[in-house]
């Protein structure tokens, strides 16, 4: 249902013609739990006649039953959708609402106020052109106001409305309003929020929402709806920029047609235009802009099209087609803002999927420059990031990525990180710029290959990765195995946890973050040694599946062999060769695997040694059998 217009009953065709040409504004509302956010949205829907009679009847019934307005209509109930929310009286997830006026159609993202749901606010903010920041006139600028405003600025929303709500409860005092606005502007200048429109309102009574309030003759600015109907939409700005289109899908119905389908993120494209494909840098000319409704002469930012090119250049999903003379940058190391959105902490060095535009690559956070306290804007040092924490970080990817700084273009500057194990979206990121060193360091192509080095030793290179609890017998088996290999004329090296920690990894402790870095370095060293043609034996507790998988991915298929020495904790603890369990139990040793730090057992190891009773000798032979079967030796 849309708003009521006289044209609907008198001339439906004219009404439809005018509705068809409306623009679309997406905005976000944010405020603290009791600021009256849901009430304001309920009011916008109600005042633009978006509430049907049956909904109104249900609303009146619900207001009496569970309302917070003493039997009066509780507009918040119109929008608080989920049963769990109704019970708690709060909004726990992003909800989208729709209404329209004569001038525009609107999509509202209603996002929760309290701290633990920052990730939902970031979700709602990512697609918004404007943010309404609600303030309770009685309370003024709160910590939560600052947090929301910072997030609005972080997500690059260009227009903010400061809606000072519940003005009826402060007697429509201009002084109260002016003080709050002055307070807020002082804060906003620190976070680069420039376009702010402050409006005194009462969501409950409907003052200055769609019509001008008689209670505040001193206020001469626009009422809320008027402002929403006229503010600039981000897509208008993007159309003026250089042409970019990330390729989503290559369209090949037959041998004669090869089209590149995607949504134009900025600028415009025309048939005959010179383009450049990134990251390859190859150029060509657009021959057709194909759509189901016929070919277009030009297409602009926001349109989903299919382009054909004059030359057969290699372009696939994840590449970007751009105007030839102003291509975007390509890099594999970036400085970014990161919002961590998962319960499990972010660990630098751990490998995540990074999706930017239509490209998905492997990525690691290499360094946390500083965390930002969203309440005070203070910068603090950090080794890990917890849920809802925000930091400036360096990120490196395993392949070059085509990007644009986020401030210019959200579609080619915004990315998500995905956990490799759970597939959950764990972070939102915004690219600041590429780190210069990524332009300069290239892999040296070497003339003697790893296969040549290995075959000159009469073997194939491999990494034999032993994992298991402290005292499980890893090192015993690894030692026997190495002796047997060397006796057979093989070239080997044994990397042992304790030994590496005395040198290469002397700077690392036993926190989760340090354990990740420890294994990352060992994985890289093992890879270089395998490149040298060696059979590398690694004997590390390596408690986390993610890092073992990362080490596995460094190696070609079939050359990484995971050996799980599966000794139950009580057996390992009863052996306690180094006396470490005793210390850990006494609290003298923190972060000890199996005691107060987790061990994630491998799910599909190549070899699973249940070592509680068997001999180390037999276990080593089992590994040798597999190496023979795989023709490594």
């Amino acid at each position, binding site marked *: *249902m*849309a708003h*009521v217009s006289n044209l*609907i*009953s008198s001339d*439906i065709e004219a009404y*439809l013609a005018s*509705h068809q*040409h*409306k*623009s*679309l504004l997406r905005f976000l509302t944010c405020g603290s739990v009791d600021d009256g956010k849901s009430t304001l949205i309920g009011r916008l829907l109600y005042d633009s006649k978006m509430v*049907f*009679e*049956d909904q109104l009847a249900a609303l009146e019934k619900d207001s009496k039953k569970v309302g917070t307005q003493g039997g009066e209509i509780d507009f918040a109930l119109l*929008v*608080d*959708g*989920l*049963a*769990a929310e*109704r019970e708690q009286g709060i909004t726990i*997830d992003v*909800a*989208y609402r*729709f209404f329209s006026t004569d001038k525009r159609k609107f999509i509202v993202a209603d996002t929760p106020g309290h701290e633990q749901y920052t990730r939902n606010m*970031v979700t709602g903010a*990512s*697609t918004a052109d404007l943010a309404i920041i609600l303030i309770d006139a009685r309370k003024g600028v709160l910590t939560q106001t600052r947090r929301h405003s910072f997030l609005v600025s972080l997500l690059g929303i260009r227009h903010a409305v400061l809606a000072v709500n519940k003005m009826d409860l402060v007697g429509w005092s201009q002084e109260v309003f002016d003080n709050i606005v002055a307070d807020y502007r002082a804060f906003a200048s620190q976070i680069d929020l420039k376009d702010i429109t402050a409006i005194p309102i009462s969501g409950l009574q409907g003052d200055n929402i769609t019509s001008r309030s008689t209670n505040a003759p001193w206020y001469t600015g626009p009422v809320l709806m008027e402002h929403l109907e006229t503010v600039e939409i981000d*897509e208008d700005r993007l*159309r003026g920029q250089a042409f970019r289109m990330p390729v*989503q899908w290559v*369209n090949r*119905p037959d041998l004669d047609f090869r089209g590149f*389908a*995607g*949504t134009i993120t900025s600028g415009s*494209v*025309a048939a005959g*235009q010179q383009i450049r494909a990134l990251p390859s840098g190859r*150029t060509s000319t657009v021959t057709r802009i194909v*759509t189901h*409704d016929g070919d277009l002469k*030009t297409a*602009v930012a926001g*349109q*989903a099209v*299919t382009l054909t090119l004059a030359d057969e250049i290699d372009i696939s999903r994840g590449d970007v087609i751009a105007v030839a*003379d102003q291509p975007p940058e390509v890099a594999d190391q970036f400085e970014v803002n990161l919002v961590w*959105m998962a319960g499990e902490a972010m660990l630098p060095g751990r490998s995540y*999927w990074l999706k930017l535009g239509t490209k998905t690559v492997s990525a690691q956070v290499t360094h946390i420059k500083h965390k930002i306290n969203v309440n005070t804007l203070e910068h603090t040092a950090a080794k890990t990031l917890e849920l809802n924490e925000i930091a400036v970080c360096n990120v490196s990817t395993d392949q070059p990525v085509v990007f644009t700084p986020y401030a210019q273009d959200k*579609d080619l500057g*915004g*990315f*998500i990180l*995905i956990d490799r194990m759970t*597939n*959950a*979206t764990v972070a*939102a990121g915004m690219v600041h710029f590429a780190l210069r060193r990524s332009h300069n360091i290239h892999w040296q192509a070497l003339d003697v290959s790893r296969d040549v080095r290995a075959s000159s030793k009469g073997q194939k290179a491999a990494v034999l990765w032993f994992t298991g609890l402290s005292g499980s017998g890893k090192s015993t088996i690894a030692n026997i195995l190495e002796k047997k290999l060397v006796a057979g004329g093989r070239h080997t090296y044994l990397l042992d946890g304790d030994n590496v920690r005395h040198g290469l990894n002397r700077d690392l402790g036993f926190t989760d973050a340090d354990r990740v870095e420890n294994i990352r370095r060992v994985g890289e060293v093992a890879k270089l040694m395998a490149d040298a043609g060696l059979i590398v034996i690694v004997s590390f507790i390596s408690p986390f599946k993610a890092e073992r998988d990362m080490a596995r991915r460094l190696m070609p298929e079939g050359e990484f062999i995971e050996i799980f020495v599966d000794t139950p904790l009580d057996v390992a603890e009863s052996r306690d060769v180094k006396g470490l369990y005793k210390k850990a139990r006494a609290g003298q040793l923190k972060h000890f695997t199996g005691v107060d730090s987790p061990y994630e057992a491998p799910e599909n190891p190549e070899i699973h040694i249940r070592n509680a009773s068997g001999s180390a000798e037999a276990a080593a032979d089992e590994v040798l059998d597999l190496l023979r079967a795989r023709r490594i030796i």
Partner: protein
Amino acid sequence: MQLKPVPVSAPPAISPERLTHLQRLEAESIHIMREVAAECERPVMLYSIGKDSAVMLRLAMKAFHPSKPPFPLMHVDTGWKFKAMYEMRDRTARELGLELIVHKNPEGVAQGINPFDHGSAVHTDVMKTQGLKQALDLHKFDAAFGGARRDEEKSRAKERIFSFRTAAHRWDPKNQRPELWRLYNARMSPGESIRVFPLSNWTELDIWQYILLESIPIVPLYFAAERPVVNRGGTLIMVDDDRMRLNPGEKPMMKKVRFRTLGCYPLSGAIESEADTLQAIIQEMLLTSTSERQGRLIDHDGAASMEKKKQEGYF
């Protein structure tokens, strides 16, 4: 990276017209469908034959043109749809040259589940919810497009466009993946699946206006015509075939009626209407005072009923 200089081309003429909201919605839906086609292994489009499905299908034809959509259509049939719906379904698949999978829960059929003896709740659960889960498992579909809109119902307003389901097809509203910008995370483990709602941001008016602009064929039942109906507690039910059980003394009467939503005919309430053109339907909808889902009998089981159904795997 070093780039060869190329001759500077004159900037193309930019159309001064900004995109209309329908063009923006269309582009967003197409973008979503292409992401699924590119990232998922076995997508399927759930085709319910209604007006939203009709729009979704047109958008799919656009998204992959000149190729056909790279996925089949699937209709989870209850056996109780209107005859006109079956005709539309088969004609559409034939004319567009698309693969159509029809799944009817064989256990439900064997037990003779029907809306008269078992009531709307059991009928819907067995034939729709369980039938859908069966079909998705049987064909190992990892992504299923649905035509739901966020303006339809309060729990849908909070659902993501890519809505993740566990291997048991459950929706966990408190643990939804954050969904940012135009970036959709379609990664999942074996057995898990996603429901994808490309029409999330469309409203009922947008759907009708698009049908009008694009001349999309829809089931004639949406248009007012003389039809045989009985009045059941204020709800007009159409007597679509001789399986309709009439109460003692009840006689179908001819009334000029149409349907705002289509489902199983014994569960779909008609409204008396004169609207027999698209313009008239839109006019009637805009001037009407009750919301769209009111004609659906299954939504009235309690305030949070849709949320509960969705958690159990209902689309």
